[in-house]
């Protein structure tokens, strides 16, 4: 058994994706990104903004300011997930089946359809790495992974972190590293979309002592403001 939990691994890996950036934001219903943003803030020059938090919230204009702030180019990275994520990095946060009468309904598209375009670095995450979550083609595009040439688009997906592996994204996903304890065969079996392989697929570096100390200390404490149940379960 490794000396860290799946949650701790996700937080550490997501934090590494945004390490050193100026302003990193975690959205609604997003405890893993919130943990990652707080960890990046604890380890570097990053400012973490946590939606729903009173303490980690620079905004004075209400709910719209997050989006205006992104449009002004003042947000460097944001995290998005999806009930489904496909090989073109399209994400589905809405529903499976007819959205007017769905067979599965997710919470909703939230700000994804906007922030995916406006924030330079979008880090995709989904702890559940399965053919159910990582699909050939999403049933509904809440936010598209790519856009045609003439559409104003300043940002988009740069990486995908799951419970099994880390992919880079440049038009297609490229498997870069596999987390300790898992194999390429595991990843292939659990991934519903086609992906490229890096020339050398690394073993993901596990959370360091320093990362774990911060995650189990101040990050967990700070998370409890917005995500008390999540923090208590960590």
């Amino acid at each position: 058994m490794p000396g860290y939990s799946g949650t701790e691994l996700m937080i550490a890996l997501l934090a590494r994706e945004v390490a050193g950036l100026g302003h990193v934001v975690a959205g609604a219903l997003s405890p893993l990104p919130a943990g990652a943003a707080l960890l990046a803030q604890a380890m570097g020059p990053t400012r973490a903004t946590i939606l729903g938090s009173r303490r980690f919230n620079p905004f004075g204009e209400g709910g719209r300011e997050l989006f205006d702030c992104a449009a002004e180019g003042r947000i460097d990275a944001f995290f998005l997930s999806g009930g489904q994520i496909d090989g073109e990095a399209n994400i589905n946060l809405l529903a499976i089946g007819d959205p007017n009468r769905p067979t599965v309904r997710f919470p909703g598209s939230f700000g994804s359809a906007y922030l995916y375009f406006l924030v330079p670095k979008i880090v995709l995450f989904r702890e559940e790495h399965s053919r159910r979550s990582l699909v050939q083609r999403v049933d509904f595009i809440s936010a598209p992974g790519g856009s045609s040439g003439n559409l104003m688009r300043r940002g988009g997906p740069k990486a995908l972190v799951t419970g099994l592996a880390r992919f880079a994204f440049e038009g297609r996903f490229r498997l870069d590293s596999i987390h300790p304890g898992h194999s390429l065969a595991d990843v292939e079996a659990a991934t519903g979309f086609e992906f490229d392989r890096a020339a050398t697929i690394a073993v993901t570096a596990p959370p360091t002592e320093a990362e774990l100390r911060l995650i189990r200390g101040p990050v967990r404490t700070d998370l409890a403001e917005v995500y008390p149940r999540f923090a208590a379960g960590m």
Partner: protein
Amino acid sequence: MTDFLSLEALAAGIPDGAHVAIPPDYSGVAMAATRALIRRGVRGLKLLSVPTAGLQADLLIGAGCVAEIETAGIALGEAGSAPRFIAALKAGALAIKDTTCPAIHAALQAAEKGIPFIPLRGIIGSDLVGRRPDWRVVDNPFVEGDPILLLPAIAPDVALFHASLADRKGNLWIGRRRELATMAHAARRTLVTVERIQDEDLLADEASAAGTLSSLYITAIAEAPQGVWPLGLAELYATDDAHMALYAAAARTEEGFRNYLGEYARL
């Protein structure tokens, strides 16, 4: 002039079929007023969540008060998904206008400015666009070959929310929760519940004025201490997580929800 009403009279100010703007769960949800609405059996509401919804919408939907909801997302926070919303949607008993958070903010700002539409970046390429015949993709008239989305303004009939404090003139302390100001500006009428009412004018000094929404925008106020329970209110009280879990479990079934309403809608 702002009216000061009982909770029941305030709820009576929202007619059947009204288009009602409601805040997100962290921003002062008028839960006591919501229970009053359910008690009086309001029907056919069109809810606009600004920009997301939670317990309030789930309760109203479960109680049969809602014909349509426009929302960027709905869940019960850490208590999970919104069960009555999902059940109603699956049953075809609820019309839905799916959207994205900044589109709601921008459309309310358009109403606030009295402009018929407002452009917004991004979004094009999302399947949301195809589901919104009221949205338009046009070419930016200032630049060749630059498609952009136009959103029509949204001016709700009523904005309904809760604030910590009002004064006798009808001014409200909203602090940093300025989406409440945008809602009130955009809406034709604004109905508010508050924790308490103070004698001192909130606009009398600049420190409190900075977080105050003028009575100019407030149609009526009802005093409702703990009026956001079981949700939390900023500095004053936290979300009642145990109750949220209780609700989430009860509302998994229609019967459980009915029992919940019977017990708690009286509050």
